[in-house]
């Protein structure tokens, strides 16, 4: 038994909007809203909110399902891999390390860009503080360094010119990467500010730029034609980081990855 004199509660307003209200109470709420503009406005705003969510996200449901999410594909994977993928995800999330990734197939790569970026940030943190031995090969041997690194990572490495950003090449080194060797180049400004570029084969062919920050380091990650790049530097100036990354991007893109 309902009575339109019983005040409508906030819970009832939500239930009204979400079609969870008993049918016999709906008329009471409608009558209530006609005489309570504040509540009517709230109800209206909640409905608008729902419309906006649909407007923003329904298109995702309309997209073609990416190949990697096709059930046939996922079901076809050898059982070992299926377990491995879940384990790898957990390991990667828990340990943040590369351990879970070694030995997995070329198939899916959950959040590989995160690990890629973490490895790069780790290397950046480790080597920028190094005064005497920041690099293995000095910039004075630039040509030799580029040939050596290209051979080891399996694609052409040409150290970008960053003079425009006030950065000089210090040199480079070879590092273990998430799934293949990584080339690591260090640059320095006249004031001693250091930026590093970490590049290796990436699991995802192309991505947009992503930003990550840890402690006082900022990093921009992107992938271009199967090669991943992370530019790391002081996170105090995001615009500067972006400017340098842009310059690297333009040059590596021209060089053909």
């Amino acid at each position, binding site marked *: 038994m309902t009575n339109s004199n019983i005040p409508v509660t906030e819970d009832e307003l939500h239930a009204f909007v*979400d079609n969870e209200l008993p049918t016999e109470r709906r008329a009471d709420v409608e009558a209530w809203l006609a005489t309570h503009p504040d509540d009517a406005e709230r109800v209206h705003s909640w409905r608008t909110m729902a419309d906006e969510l649909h407007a923003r996200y329904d298109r995702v449901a309309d*997209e073609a399902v990416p190949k990697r999410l096709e*059930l046939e594909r996922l079901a076809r994977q050898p059982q070992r891999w*299926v377990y491995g993928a879940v384990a790898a995800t957990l390991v990667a999330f828990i340990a943040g390390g590369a351990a879970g990734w070694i030995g997995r197939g070329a198939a899916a790569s959950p*959040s590989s860009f995160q690990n890629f970026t973490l490895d790069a940030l780790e290397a950046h943190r480790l080597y920028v503080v190094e005064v005497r031995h920041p690099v293995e090969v000095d910039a004075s041997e630039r040509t030799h360094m580029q040939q050596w690194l290209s051979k080891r990572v399996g694609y052409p490495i040409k150290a970008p010119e960053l003079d425009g950003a006030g950065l000089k090449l210090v040199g480079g080194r070879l590092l273990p990467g998430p799934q293949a060797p990584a080339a690591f180049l260090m640059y320095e400004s006249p004031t001693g500010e250091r930026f590093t570029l970490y590049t290796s084969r990436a699991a995802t062919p192309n991505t947009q730029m992503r930003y990550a920050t840890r402690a006082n380091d900022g990093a921009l990650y992107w992938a271009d034609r199967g090669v991943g790049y992370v530019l790391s530097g002081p996170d105090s100036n995001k615009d500067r980081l972006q400017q340098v990354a842009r310059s690297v991007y333009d040059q590596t893109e021209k060089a053909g990855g």
Partner: protein
Amino acid sequence: MNAFRESVEAMIPALRRYARALTRDADIADDLVQDTLVRALRSERLFLGGDIRSWLYTILTNLNRNRRRSLARKPQFTEFFDTAADASGTEAEGRDIARALATLPEEQRSVLLLVTLEGLSYREVADIQGAPIGTVMSRLARARAHVKTSIEGQRPALRRVK
């Protein structure tokens, strides 16, 4: 393909939508959906009937909670160009709602999306979150109040709600 797989497959578009709104990152969202599907396939034999839809949302919600828990100790990743200030029209509105979602506590965001975007009942959401229905309703009320003020340009004081 058997009936189980057909039901799971029919849910992929909706799972992607929910994951995208939940994480606001296309790659992370599809990673979550993929992990959800892998887990669902693995449990095919263990699935004893019931509502596949709720079950899949439950897996995804839990995987995302685990992901966030471990991310708490990690650097935060964001899409670098997500904050363009010059957007207009529906694009800008979409950004506003996405930004408002970003500031919601996880449980509240999940309730709001499951109810309004995915059309689940309070009962189903309570089961998915393993919480009483009253808790779900209070999370929903807080989420709506927060998003409303956030879109209107004021940031309400963030309160931690269990």
